[in-house]
């Protein structure tokens, strides 16, 4: 069955099935937007928290680490309740069952991963870099750029890890997206749907496409990392 589904998967990709491309595109769009937003918030947050001491810092980091493993279904449920017409946000802006809702849920999943991984790197590696830069006459802006450059591997690792997690999760996107055909159906929800219908070959084929995406992204990271 695995072999058949491999063939099926390749056939499917080559078949020019528009809905399939849209599903792949939607998966990539939702997850990259989520990771982009989580990065914009998480990277500065990680640097700010990692470089400064403040009361409750160790608790902040502990909670962050716990949140790195948040169950997607739980996040989906909370976001659902918040975005529902009966919830506090849904009264004002109604986003439930849209890609935006899926992005919000995935941002919540991605943010602790990005922040947590980068904060660890900052705590471990930033001090000698800062000392070196300042000892060479760098100003605050130059110091920040150098720090970002020196820690870019950790930053990219955090982003890729977060992306890998959100693009493969199904619990949150099903709940808040609703798996609406042509609108909020993504690779993972399509896999669930096809499995339930007993179309295991198709489901596996979609799974292989998902794996391929992760593989491409991780390979790109690997090559970038070992360029030297």
């Amino acid at each position: 069955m695995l072999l058949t589904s491999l063939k099926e998967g390749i056939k499917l990709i080559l078949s020019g099935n528009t809905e399939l491309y849209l599903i792949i595109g939607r998966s990539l769009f939702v997850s990259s937007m989520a990771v982009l937003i989580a990065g914009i918030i998480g990277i500065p947050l990680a640097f700010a928290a990692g470089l400064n001491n403040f009361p409750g810092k160790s608790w902040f980091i502990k909670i962050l680490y716990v949140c790195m493993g948040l169950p997607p279904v739980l996040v989906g449920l909370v976001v659902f309740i918040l975005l529902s017409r009966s919830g506090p946000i849904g009264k004002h802006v109604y986003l439930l069952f849209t890609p935006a809702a899926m992005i919000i849920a995935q941002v919540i999943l991605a943010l602790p991963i990005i922040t947590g991984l980068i904060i660890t790197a900052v705590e471990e590696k930033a001090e000698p870099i800062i000392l070196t830069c300042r000892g060479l006459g760098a100003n605050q802006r130059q110091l920040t750029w150098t720090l970002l450059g020196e820690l870019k591997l950790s930053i990219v690792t955090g982003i890729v890890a977060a992306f890998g997690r959100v693009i493969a999760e199904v619990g949150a996107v099903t709940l808040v997206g609703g798996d609406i055909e042509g609108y909020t159906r993504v690779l993972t929800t399509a896999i669930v749907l096809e499995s339930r219908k007993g179309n295991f070959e198709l489901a596996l084929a979609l799974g292989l496409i998902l794996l391929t995406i992760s593989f491409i992204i991780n390979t790109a990271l690997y090559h970038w990392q070992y360029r030297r």
Partner: protein
Amino acid sequence: MLVAEGLSQIYQGRQIVQDFTFQFEPGRIYGIIGANGAGKSTLLRLLSAMEKPSAGRTLLQGKELTAPVPEISCVWQRPYLFQQSVRRNIRYGLKIRGWPRKAEQERVQQLLEIFRLEHLQDNWAPKLSGGETARVAIARALAPRPKILLLDEPTANLDPSNTLLVERALYEVHREEQTTIIIVTHDMFQAKRLADVTLYLSGGKLVEYGPSRIIFNSLATEETRRFIRGEL
């Protein structure tokens, strides 16, 4: 001229540096010696304004230092090299000061030669050996022609040939550019070889100082004599 006025530092109730007052004249080499824990590294961070002293102040050309300034370059113990090539590491200080490309290339080339790093210029800096790392770090600090260079144990853990290479290169730059060099070392022979003036630090206090030629021959205190004899 770099002037320290009553510099003191206390960490968690422990006095690390105590009332350090000294005038570092331009264009000379100073050696700061003393046993482990004598407060040498902390003093260096206070002199460069990396740390805020608990009392006292540092003045550069009469102006109080509150933050690190570009005129002073530092090389720390176990130096950190950027994840770049050797050439780009050395270029760092020039890049951030916006040197013109041509001047930048010439300066880097000059330092690569002085520190015998030409054959390594395209190597990935974090993978260098200890001796090579020390040479790159010092060349990088010297690149922007700082008025003052602070060195914290630059040759600790280096083999004799690397130590000699570093000392010769330092001396060459110093001679050419009249860089003031303040070198913290636990190796009194290095101070003797390199420094015009040697300062002996003990328990955070400046115990005695004097021209290196003389101080090693006519030590004032019993403690310094014991240190020199290797008993401390």
